[in-house]
C-alpha cells in the first residue's frame, strides 16, 4: 500500500485547470521529486498534499486513510507532515520560538520542547542564533530556520517547495547538503518540487515530470533523464540536441534516420516513414579530428561554429548539416584547437541516442 496516494486530483483557479487528473502513489521512505518548469502546478500539488488547500475534484489518502474530509481529519493528518514553503518566512519572534511553535501547538511539555529545539538548532548549525530575532537573518539562514521548524516535530512526510530557489549558490548548496543529510538520517518520506533537474536527480529516487498541470512521466531519475518520453520532457530535462528527422530504414530495431539529408544510425522500434526526434546529450558527443570507424557509432564531419568555456568544460557547437552541441573537457578542446572554422568529426554511440515520436 502506498503511503500517499492522490486519486484523480483536479484543481482549478478562476476557471483554469491548474492540475489535470493527477494520480500519484508514493511509498513510505521514498524521496520523490516533482520537476517541471515554473508555473507547472508543483506548488499547487504540494499545497494539496499538505491539505492546506482542498482539491476541486479527487481524493487523497495518507497511509490508506482518506484525508480529504473534515477539517479535524485534515489537521490531524497535517500534523504528521511538514511543509517548507518556497518563500522562507519566519514568524516575528526569536529563532528559538520559531522552531518551538509547532511543538507548542501540539501541546508538548516545556522541557521536552527545549530539548528538541536545542537539538534541531544544533543540527542545522544555528545553535548560537536561538535568541536572535528571526527577522534579522539572511535568506539562507531563514531557510535553515524554516527547515528546522519543519523537521522538529519528526514528521512522517516532509514536503519541500523549491528549497533552494531563492538562494545564492553557496547558501543553496548548504541547504541541499542539509536536505541530503535529513534524507539520509531521518526515516521520512520526502516530496520535493524543483525546477532544477539536476537537484532532482541528486536527491530523489523517483521523479515525476509535471508540465502544464499534467504528469507526463514518472520513473527512476536516470530513466527520465536519459529516456524522456516526448520532446517537451526532453527539453526540460536538459537534452540540448533534439533533431527532427524521418525513419529511412529499420531492420530489427537498427534504424537509419534521415535528418536534413544526413543519415544517422539509431536504435528504435518506429517504422519507416515515422516522423521522429532524436535526442542526444551534449556530454555523449565526442569531438575528434579524424573519422571514427566503428559500426556502433555515428561519425559526422562538421565545422565548429562556436566554442566557449564553461568552467572545466568547453561547449562546442558544430554544424554537421544540422547544429550539434557537444561538451568536451577544456584540455582536449585546447589540444584539438577547437575554434570557429575548425573541421572536426562529431562522434556519438548509437545507444546514447534516444528516439521519440513527434506529435
Amino acid at each position, binding site marked *: 500500500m502506498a503511503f500517499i496516494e492522490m486519486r484523480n486530483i483536479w484543481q482549478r483557479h478562476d476557471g483554469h485547470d491548474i492540475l489535470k487528473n493527477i494520480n500519484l502513489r508514493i511509498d513510505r521512505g521514498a524521496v520523490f521529486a516533482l520537476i517541471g518548469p515554473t508555473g507547472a502546478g508543483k506548488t499547487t500539488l504540494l*499545497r494539496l498534499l*499538505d491539505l*492546506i488547500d482542498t482539491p476541486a475534484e479527487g481524493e487523497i489518502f495518507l497511509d490508506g486513510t482518506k484525508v480529504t474530509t473534515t*477539517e479535524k481529519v485534515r*489537521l490531524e493528518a*497535517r*500534523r504528521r*507532515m*511538514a*511543509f517548507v*514553503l518556497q*518563500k522562507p*518566512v519566519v*514568524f*516575528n*519572534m526569536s529563532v528559538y520560538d520559531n522552531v518551538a*511553535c*509547532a511543538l507548542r*501547538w*501540539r501541546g508538548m511539555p516545556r522541557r521536552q520542547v527545549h530539548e528538541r529545539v536545542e537539538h534541531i538548532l544544533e543540527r542545522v548549525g544555528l545553535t548560537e542564533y536561538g535568541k536572535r530575532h528571526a527577522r534579522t537573518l539572511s535568506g539562507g539562514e531563514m531557510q535553515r530556520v*524554516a527547515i528546522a*521548524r*519543519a523537521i522538529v*516535530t519528526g514528521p512522517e512526510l516532509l*514536503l519541500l517547495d523549491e528549497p533552494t530557489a531563492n538562494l545564492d549558490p553557496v547558501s543553496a548548496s548548504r541547504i541541499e547538503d542539509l536536505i541530503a543529510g535529513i534524507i539520509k538520517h531521518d526515516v521520512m518520506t520526502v516530496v520535493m518540487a524543483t525546477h532544477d533537474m539536476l537537484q532532482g536527480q541528486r536527491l530523489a529516487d523517483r521523479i515525476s515530470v509535471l508540465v502544464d498541470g499534467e504528469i507526463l512521466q514518472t520513473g527512476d531519475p536516470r530513466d527520465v533523464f536519459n529516456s524522456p518520453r516526448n520532446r517537451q520532457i526532453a527539453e526540460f530535462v536538459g537534452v540540448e540536441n533534439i533533431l527532427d528527422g524521418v525513419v529511412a530504414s529499420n531492420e530489427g530495431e537498427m534504424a537509419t534516420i534521415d535528418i536534413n539529408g544526413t543519415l544517422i544510425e539509431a536504435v528504435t522500434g518506429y517504422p519507416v516513414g515515422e516522423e521522429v526526434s532524436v535526442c542526444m546529450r551534449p556530454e555523449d558527443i565526442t569531438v575528434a579530428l579524424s573519422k571514427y570507424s566503428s559500426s556502433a557509432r555515428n561519425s559526422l564531419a562538421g565545422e565548429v561554429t562556436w566554442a566557449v568555456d564553461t568552467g572545466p568544460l568547453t561547449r562546442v557547437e558544430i554544424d554537421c548539416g544540422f547544429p550539434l552541441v557537444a561538451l568536451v573537457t577544456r584540455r582536449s578542446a585546447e589540444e584539438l584547437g577547437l575554434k570557429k572554422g575548425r573541421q572536426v568529426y562529431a562522434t556519438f554511440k548509437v545507444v546514447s541516442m534516444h528516439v521519440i515520436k513527434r506529435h
Partner: protein
Amino acid sequence: MVELWHGLLRAVELIITFDPEVMQIAGRSLRIALTSAVIASVICIPVASIIHFNEFRGKRFLVSLIQTFYSIPTVAIGLFVFVFISSAGPLGFLGIIFTPAAIVVGQVLLITPILLGLTISALRGVDRTILDTARSLGASQMQMMVLTIREARFAVMAAVIMGFGRAISEVGISLMIGGNIRGATRVITTAISLETSKGDLEFALALGIILIFIALVVNIVMNRIQQR
C-alpha cells in the same frame, strides 16, 4: 493678551505644584479612558479576528459599516446610553447613571468601531505566507488566530492607542451620562468646558495643557510602535 499670558503662567504653576484638584481630575480622566480602552480591546481583538478569519455574506458591508461608525458623534452615544440607563430606562435598575461606570460604557461604545476596524486592517496586513506556514506546521484555527494577532501586534497596539486617544479626548459622553459631578465624574474635558464658561481660564488652561501633553505622549508612543 496680558490675561492670556497670566493665565498660562498660572496654569503652569498649577501643574508643577501638583494642585490636588487638577491632579485628581487628570487622574480620573486617565483611569476612565484606560479602563474603556482595556475593556474595548478585550472585546474587539477577538471579535475582529473572528470577522477576519471567517468568510460570510455581507462581510464587506459589515466592515464598511464599522468604518462608518469611526466618526459617530459623542453626543449621539451620550443620548443613546442615557436613554437606556436613566432611571426610567430599561437598564435604569443598574443605577449607574452619573457614575464613572456609565462614562466607561459610553466610551467603550464610542471606540469599539475604531478598535474593530483598525484591528481588522492590522490582521489583514499579515502576509498570507505566514498563515500558510502556520497552518502547515499544524496550527489549529484558534492557534492561527493567536499567531496572527501576535504577528500584527504593533498594528493592533496602534489601534488600541487610537481608541484610548479618542476616549480621553471626548466630552459629549462624559458630560451627558457622567454629569460632570465634582469629585465623582468630573474629567479633564468636562472641567475645561465648565471652567471656561465660568471664566476661570487658568484652571481650564492647566487642564488643557495636561490633555495636550497626554495626546503628545500617546502620539510619540504610537510613532515609535509604528516604526518597528
